[in-house]
């Protein structure tokens, strides 16, 4: 009898504790993430004047965005930004991880130097690259000048600006890919490689026939994580090019940010935010479906 009462008391105590432990986190998440989404949906359906919400206008903003060149070119810019970045970041990260997975002298030191860009902010990344590629005083421009007799301005031609933003992004974010793939490589048992060596496989064969297939799941995960990261990225692009020249680097996220906080079109900006959110959701659903198929 006594034991049962004790157990009940313990259960009650646990119930109260679990409410106290969970409440702050849940309240914060509800107030600062869930509520704003509902609020943004509401704002996007009303005319706005600065922070004032006026009359209901339905899907007008959505039609405006999805019916305009500005909206579609932003979506196109986002897609090309994500794809170009992935195309560089995944092979570079993988190669660097495979090289660093060997037992070579100075490995920790080299790894530290290679990962450093990851701890720098997107703002700092943008500023460092802006200076390195500066057309008047930068060393890159000087090298180009001594070869061709002309200075080069990376931020004035649309195509060059697109590549510059991708390059700075790859520099800043390939260490993440490197870390994730290196962690996966370290969990592959050495027996597999020994067996391959006994069978007389060359290094390239080992890489393509053994390492790469074993890395496939983590590469897939990395692709998904990074594509969402790149798609939602504002700071790097905004601080490096502000979406210019001629909107060439204006991705959907940069468009939403600028509409909101440069032009103060909060309704239009909210609608763009909701479009970004929906695209994110579609992408996660697609990802989960493909993962389930694999299982």
């Amino acid at each position, binding site marked *: 009898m006594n034991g049962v009462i004790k157990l009940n008391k313990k259960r009650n105590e646990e119930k109260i504790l679990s409410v106290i432990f969970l409440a702050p986190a849940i309240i914060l998440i509800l107030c*600062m993430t869930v509520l704003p989404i509902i609020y943004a949906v509401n704002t996007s359906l009303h005319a706005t004047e600065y922070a004032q919400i006026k009359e209901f206008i339905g899907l007008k903003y959505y039609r405006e965005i999805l019916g305009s060149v500005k909206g579609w070119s932003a979506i196109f810019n986002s897609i090309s930004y994500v794809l170009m970045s992935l195309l560089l970041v995944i092979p570079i990260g993988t190669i660097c991880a495979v090289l660093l997975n060997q037992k070579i002298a100075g490995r920790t030191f080299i790894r530290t130097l290679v990962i*450093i860009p990851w701890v720098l902010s997107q703002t700092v990344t943008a500023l460092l690259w802006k200076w390195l590629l500066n057309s008047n005083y930068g060393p890159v421009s000087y090298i180009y000048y001594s070869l061709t007799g002309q200075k080069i301005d990376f931020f004035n031609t649309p195509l060059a600006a697109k590549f510059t933003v991708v390059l700075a992004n790859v520099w800043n974010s390939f260490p993440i890919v490197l870390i994730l793939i290196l962690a996966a490589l370290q969990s592959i048992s050495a027996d597999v490689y020994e067996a391959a060596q006994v069978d007389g496989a060359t290094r390239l064969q080992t890489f393509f026939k053994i390492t790469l297939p074993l890395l496939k799941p983590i590469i897939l995960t990395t692709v998904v994580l990074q594509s969402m990261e790149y798609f939602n990225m504002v700071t790097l692009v905004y601080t490096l090019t502000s979406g210019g020249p001629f909107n060439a680097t204006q991705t959907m*996220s940069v468009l939403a940010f600028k509409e909101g906080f440069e032009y103060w079109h909060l309704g239009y900006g909210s609608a763009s935010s909701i479009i970004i959110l929906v695209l994110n959701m579609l992408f996660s659903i697609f990802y989960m479906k493909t993962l389930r198929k694999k299982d």
Partner: protein
Amino acid sequence: MAGSYATGKKKFSIYILLTYLVLILFILVTITPIIWGLITSLKGTGEINRFPPTIFPEKLDLSNFYKVIFLSNFTTYFKNSCLVTFLCILASTIIAGHAAYAISRFNIKFKEQMMFGILMTSMVPAVALLIPLYIMGVKAGIYNTGFMLVLVYTSWRTPMLTWILKGFFDSVPIAIEEAAMIDGCTRLRTFYTIVIPMSQPGIVSSALLTAVYVWNDFLVSFTFVTKEELRTVSVGLYSYITQYGVQWGELLSAVMITIIPIIILFVLLQRKFVDGMAAGAVKG
């Protein structure tokens, strides 16, 4: 046998040489922008605006650092960033830590659904929340306050931290806690005196990730704070561009002051950074 071993070894060393060459190339690419920034920050204004650029400063000139530290508001930005980062680490670790422990150990209904919900909210992009939070902040009267910054960072870090910390708490053997509770230790005491010290490495890792996130953030600070005296370093840096034309020497000195603490922290505690990062990413 011996012969084949020897040739194997020879091939091996050529391969190692190649590895080093490629890795050195990687290092050059990763550190060049930083080193170029550092070199520039040590040059005088006249030497910075010269074409062709000099590789090493002709005369070491610390006037840019002097101007940034003593003649600008940058020290205020720096202090603000330190304070906000510290408060966010404290608040988010405490809040997420308790939630993670409850999910890890207590019998809660809809536990799976709750974890899934938390995961989903951690994936909501910041850019989608800025505008509604701006309007809500203005209406609530907390726009343009340090409190707003701490509130936003803390609540955005909470979902991810809860996931990471739950993973670390799960790996603490439950038997130790049971033994302590049989000895008359309450749940609460077990958590504070046994579980937390045992998961200290995980807590440190996740705190470091929060530190990097808050210290490096531009978007939240740019959006919710416009007062000069509340500005944080990332936004402070950006203001060098619009405010004074571009003062590259001062700007890059400020950049160096901003990145040095985080680089030192990273070099000293690299293992912990990498652990936390891997835990967070795999879960996310």
